């Protein structure tokens, strides 16, 4: 009869609806075996993706049957990824672990609202408290609890150049470079009809990085640190001088800069269409992936004026609160902080290990140069990657740089930054 068939259909529908959510809970794995691990990052370009893959292979040695979900969102500096992450966290659907920068980004955005769990016990059990420099571990500590582990430390204030083109023009770059030397070389290149500076700011963080490096180079590390604790204001004469220098550097950039992403600009440098590129050493991964040789095809030097300073752009991972698979996540974090993991990840990525006990022979000339600098230079945080100041100030800086590139109005730029600092609450 019709009604009997209908009631059977209704019953099966109801049963299906009831049982469906139960199917979503898989049996919890005891210890790291099987299970899933969702790793959220913004490592999508050539060298970065290869480095992430090497970490996945290390993890597979610990947990051969585990499945890794590589959740990446493209966009330099994590600008797009952080937006996606925010919505997931607010919606109560966190990935197991995600990429963070220490400092303001980790402590202000994730620790304070309670999105991550502390991993202080991992530091003791894995022995990291003995091999990781206290300075950078403190950047991830709040009220005595440590909330993240770093896989690599990038240097933000680097200047890369195409050595072959410079050799052809008869320009040599020494161990340091001053702004005068830079402009002299740039003028010579411009006269030879070669674009001196490569910039790829379709994502404006690249120009903001150029500004940040120039600012550090002009005012020096002590005053630079003073900007973030309020003792130096953004309209101080030295800062305005840095803004003017930044504007001068922009006169030497390629005309299509706003159509290129940061890695496309590095590619232009590799092709020899432009010569210098101010970028952190995640650009090194691009050179490696293209098969170029250190000091033969390309070279590097600290950004003009910043020799003696090391701008830390470090990458680390966290343990999400209510992570879908905490066991696998802790295993992943252990791999990240391990000697083997850091030795296989960092050469591909361009960063140096956060551990101080790695085998230096496994790293090339650039890494050894960077590790020497990290050991003795003044360490400063980066604002362009969210460490030195809150996200609202970072966006205000990006907006001000966007307008400055076009109107070159130094006074208005300085006033805008002062106002943004006051609104974000870290300056009077």
């Amino acid at each position, binding site marked *: 009869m019709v009604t009997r068939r209908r009631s059977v259909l209704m019953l099966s529908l109801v049963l299906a609806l009831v049982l469906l959510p139960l199917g979503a809970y898989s049996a919890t794995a005891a210890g790291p075996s099987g299970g899933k691990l969702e790793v959220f990052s913004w490592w999508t370009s050539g060298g970065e993706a290869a480095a992430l893959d090497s970490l996945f292979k290390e993890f597979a040695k610990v947990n051969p049957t585990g499945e890794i979900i590589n959740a990446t969102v493209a966009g330099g500096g994590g600008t797009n990824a952080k937006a996606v992450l925010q919505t997931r966290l607010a919606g109560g659907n966190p990935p197991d672990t995600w990429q963070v920068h220490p400092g303001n980004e980790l402590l*202000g955005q994730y620790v*304070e609202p309670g999105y991550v769990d502390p991993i202080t016990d991992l530091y003791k059990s894995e022995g990291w408290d003995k091999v990781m420099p206290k300075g950078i571990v403190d950047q991830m500590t709040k009220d005595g609890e440590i909330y993240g582990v770093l896989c690599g430390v990038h240097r933000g204030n680097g200047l890369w150049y195409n050595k072959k083109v410079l050799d052809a023009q008869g320009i040599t770059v020494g161990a340091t470079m001053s702004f005068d030397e830079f402009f002299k070389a740039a003028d010579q290149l411009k006269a030879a009809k070669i674009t001196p500076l490569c910039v790829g700011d379709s994502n404006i963080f690249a120009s903001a990085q150029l500004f940040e490096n120039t600012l550090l180079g002009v005012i020096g590390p002590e005053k630079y640190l003073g900007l973030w604790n309020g003792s130096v204001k953004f309209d101080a004469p030295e800062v305005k001088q840095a803004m003017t220098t930044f504007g001068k550097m922009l006169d030497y950039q390629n005309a299509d800069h706003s159509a290129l992403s940061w890695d496309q600009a590095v590619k232009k440098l590799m092709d020899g269409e432009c010569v210098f590129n101010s970028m952190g050493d995640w650009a090194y991964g691009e050179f490696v992936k293209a098969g170029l040789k250190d000091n033969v095809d390309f070279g590097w030097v600290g950004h003009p004026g910043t020799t003696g300073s090391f701008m830390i752009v470090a990458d680390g991972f966290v343990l999400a609160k209510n992570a879908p698979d905490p066991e696998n996540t802790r295993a992943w974090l252990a791999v990240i902080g391990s000697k083997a993991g850091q030795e296989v990840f960092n050469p591909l990525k361009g960063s140096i290990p956060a551990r101080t006990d790695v085998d230096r022979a496994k790293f090339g000339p650039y890494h050894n140069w960077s590790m020497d600098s990290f050991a003795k230079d003044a360490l400063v945080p980066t604002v362009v990657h969210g460490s030195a100041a809150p996200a609202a100030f970072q966006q205000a800086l990006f907006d001000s740089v966007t307008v400055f590139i076009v*109107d070159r109005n130094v006074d208005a730029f300085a006033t805008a930054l002062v106002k943004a600092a006051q609104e974000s609450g870290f300056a009077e």
Partner: protein
Amino acid sequence: MSSSALTGSQAQRAATVLVPRRRSWLPERTQSFLLLLPSFVAIAIFVYVFIAMTLYVSISNWRTLKMDLSLGQPPYATYLSMFAQPRFQADLRNTLVFTILFMGLAVLIGLALAILLDRNLRGRAVFRNIFLFPYALSFVVTGVAWRWIFNPETGINLFFNILGINPLLSQFGLEPLKPGWTTDPTVWLQVNKVLAAVWPPAAGLRVQLGIPAAIIPVAIAAVWQLSGFVMAMYTGGMATISDEVRQAARIDGATEGEIYRHIIIPMLKPVTISIVVLLLHTSLKIFDLVFTMAGPGPGFATDVPAIFVFEQTFRATRYNLGSAAAIFMLVLSGLVIVPYLRHSLKEG
């Protein structure tokens, strides 16, 4: 009539059998109300309550990832700071320029295509489909494709070399033609100084009021996508114009051109109003096309309020500023849609 017609008494009995007595225990009005109730509730919650929540956030102090719903001092402070930002002023300028360019071109081209199709050429159906295909794409696909087309190094600029235009120009000693398209930060026809003479505070504006060169490729891409839709609406409108009107005009001695200019197009006025309203409210809220094609652009030449909302809410985590911009967009769209709806519902 037919042999199966029923006699009078048979018909009466049939009527009582065929029309069942209404056994409803609710009057009809209540039934209709209950049928509509789920939609009402859903719209009330997911549209109006959310709008109210956004309005509240826009007057609060919520500026970081940590929720802070205390009222701002004064409540409209966020709106003041939003209008004072050069970026938002640039957004308003860009929306105005984009809307005028986009609507003007889309209506003109759509109308021209509809008139051409009206001429009963051979292969009419094929052309109609070709013109309408772009509307089937998503804005994201259009944005990416046109981004590649307008890339100054590898896109349409190559044609200027291939077709011999640039070699010709350099023969005459002129600069080769290589427009920057979306990378061009120039603003043409700047009216800042003119405006400052009339309204002194305009002299302090950082944003250059004029026509940003970079918004033109974006408008071209949007016109390409939507002129087919405009053409389809005009074709539909022309189909309702009976042939007798045209024949009467021909008898009176009007040429084809005059028929279109003086009769058909004025009769299409209701269609034109609908098209203008739909295009206007698309261009006020446009996000995906601009974001994938050009982003905020050099010096915010292609920034639009929707991108502003996205970046302020999700990158800067300034939820109150993002909400204020969203409420502003709502008011702007409402100013356009509400009079149109009142006008069209009154007629029906």
